[in-house]
């Protein structure tokens, strides 16, 4: 136990085994053991591939959220943003059928628009927060409502559906595999690696951490605080658009119920992973585990009828709180002080 206790100031540099940073991994392994003991089919290839693919949506969005939260911000608009982008993508692709046909060109046009929209929406959140000097919570609460109602408006209250022929072209992006792993999982892996590199190995990543720790000091250290913070929201927007690009081919539709509560799941994944909600410390690896944990909980609950369906939310809530408590609780620190 004494090995596990570390001084928080040096934990970034320490390489030896650390229960607190390993907390999310331990929680995930425990969940997998529970899942397997409930039903051996939990570890079947099909279920694991479903699990990873499902985690990709929240995981990719949560990697963007790691940057925003590390730099001391928060983005509540991501779920609605995903729904609005999905809706606009579908409208654009459907209307491009006449000119571009139902081939790859139309799908690429849709994806390109998605990326522009995502970065643009992130830029709006960023500029309103920094130049507009409005709290991020309020800005993104506002844009959350705006994007959600926009998708309802575009869909006339109903559901937007992708043209059937384009769906055939676009479908493999969600359902096909490459070297045994579904394509959404590959996207998740690439985004994770790029995100890890950006946060841990570049000046930009250090600026994010510095701003999250103390914005005033960062400003006097000649860091362009406003532009770095705006960048974090644009990264978030880009991540949302990537998640949307792999989400749309799954069911080929978007409605006002698309992406509901994704923002809270993404924030939960980030915090379970060990990133500090008030900023100043971020962990991409933890975020990935956090996303996997959240998806695994839902999966396990579907694998058992031991727990009443009405208590699903209770189980999810308990596991989130326990996972964070494992990292934050004084149970390790107290022993360190004695030593």
């Amino acid at each position, binding site marked *: 136990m004494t090995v596990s206790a570390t001084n928080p100031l040096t934990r970034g540099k320490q390489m030896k085994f650390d229960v607190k940073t390993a907390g999310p991994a331990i929680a995930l392994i425990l969940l997998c053991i529970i899942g397997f003991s409930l*039903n051996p*089919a*939990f570890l*079947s290839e*099909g*279920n694991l591939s*479903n699990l990873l693919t*499902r985690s990709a949506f929240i995981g990719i969005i949560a990697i963007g959220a790691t940057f925003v939260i590390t730099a001391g911000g928060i983005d509540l608009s991501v779920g609605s943003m995903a729904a609005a982008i999905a809706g606009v993508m579908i409208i654009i692709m459907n209307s491009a059928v006449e000119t571009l046909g139902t081939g790859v060109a139309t799908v690429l046009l849709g994806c390109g628009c998605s990326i522009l929209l995502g970065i643009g929406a992130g830029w709006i959140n960023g500029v309103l927060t920094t130049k507009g000097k409005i709290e991020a919570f309020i800005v993104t609460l506002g844009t959350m409502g705006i994007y959600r109602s926009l998708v*309802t408006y575009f*869909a*006339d*209250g*109903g*559901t937007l*559906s992708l043209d059937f022929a384009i769906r055939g072209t676009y479908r493999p992006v969600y*359902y096909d595999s490459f070297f045994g792993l579904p394509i959404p999982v590959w996207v998740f892996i690439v985004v994770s690696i790029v995100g890890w590199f950006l946060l841990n190995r570049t000046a930009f990543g250090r600026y994010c951490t510095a701003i999250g720790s103390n914005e005033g000091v960062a400003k006097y250290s000649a860091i362009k605080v406003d532009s770095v913070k705006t960048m974090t929201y644009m990264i978030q927007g880009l991540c949302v658009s990537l998640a949307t690009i792999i989400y749309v081919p*799954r*069911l080929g*539709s978007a*409605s*006002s*119920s*698309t992406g509901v509560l994704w923002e809270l799941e993404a924030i939960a994944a980030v915090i379970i992973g060990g990133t500090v909600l008030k900023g100043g410390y971020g962990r991409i690896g933890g975020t990935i585990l956090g996303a996997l944990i959240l998806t695994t909980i*839902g*999966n396990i609950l*579907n*694998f058992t*009828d031991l727990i009443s*369906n*009405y208590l*699903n939310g209770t189980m999810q809530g308990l596991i989130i709180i326990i996972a964070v408590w494992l990292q934050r609780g004084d149970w390790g620190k107290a022993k360190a002080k004695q030593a």
Partner: protein
Amino acid sequence: MKPFSKLGAMVVTGALVMSSTLASAETIKIGVSYPTPTHAWAAGMNWHAEQAGKRLEALYPDVDMILVNSSDPSAQASALEDLVSVHQIDALVVLPFESEPLTDPVLNVKKSGALITVVDRGLSQPGIEDIYVAGNNPELGRVSAKYMKTRLKSGDNIVVLRGIPTLIDNERFDAFMAEMEGSGVNILDHKHANWNRDDGFEVMQDFLSRFPDIDAVWAQDDDIAIGVVAALKQAGRDGDGMFVVGGAGMKETIKAIMDGETLVPVDVLYPPSMIATAMDVTVAAFKSNGPVAGRYILGATLITPENAASFYFPDSPF
């Protein structure tokens, strides 16, 4: 006794309306109040209300339909006040946002002398409405179960995907389970998929991993069924006589049934057009020579390739 007193009230109201119509040659004003759509079914309901409004005004030049949709219960309460004070309506057709907060506002409209028609969600006090029009949730479950029994034999396995945990979901589910009892068909498990495509997809994926042998799926709702079908196709388990039963009457589902789809061979109606029925009955209260007051519980019709065409509205958003 009750029907008689209601009928009496009806005749009196009708007579009053008649006399005022004759005296001032005024039009019959009917207010129609319903929620702004928050989901696809409600969007279909809005569309059908507008269609019925246009149709009835074209049919009867002296009928004026005033359609108002409101985005929350308090906005609907204000809309009801305006219908009385500004428009001086002779009748009200209302689909309440929530039963509790709208009971008093509707009672106030009734005090102004207007005929009251309540749609789908009942008020929390009995006896306010003259006409009640609604779908039949237990019947939806029962009709689905009856169809399941015609296709399955004892020892077959089904899974059930439920809606959002609410009274509506419980009524449908309990009636389904009661009807299935004694059939020998195993109901492996039931989980909530919240009337949502994504949840339907994920819950069905997990059911497929968990149960190697599933013969049919009761998805209860057309949106859930779309997710279920995608999961079945992904797992390659959409053959071998597998079938999915949804519910509500989404236009895409009905179109597929017309085209002879075998994976979703039937649908069970919970019609968004019930508001149109309510408007028709309300106008009939002024135009028909027969009595109309009473409760109209619409059937949960089984939609098959034979009758699908009469439930297909290609222009509706749902």
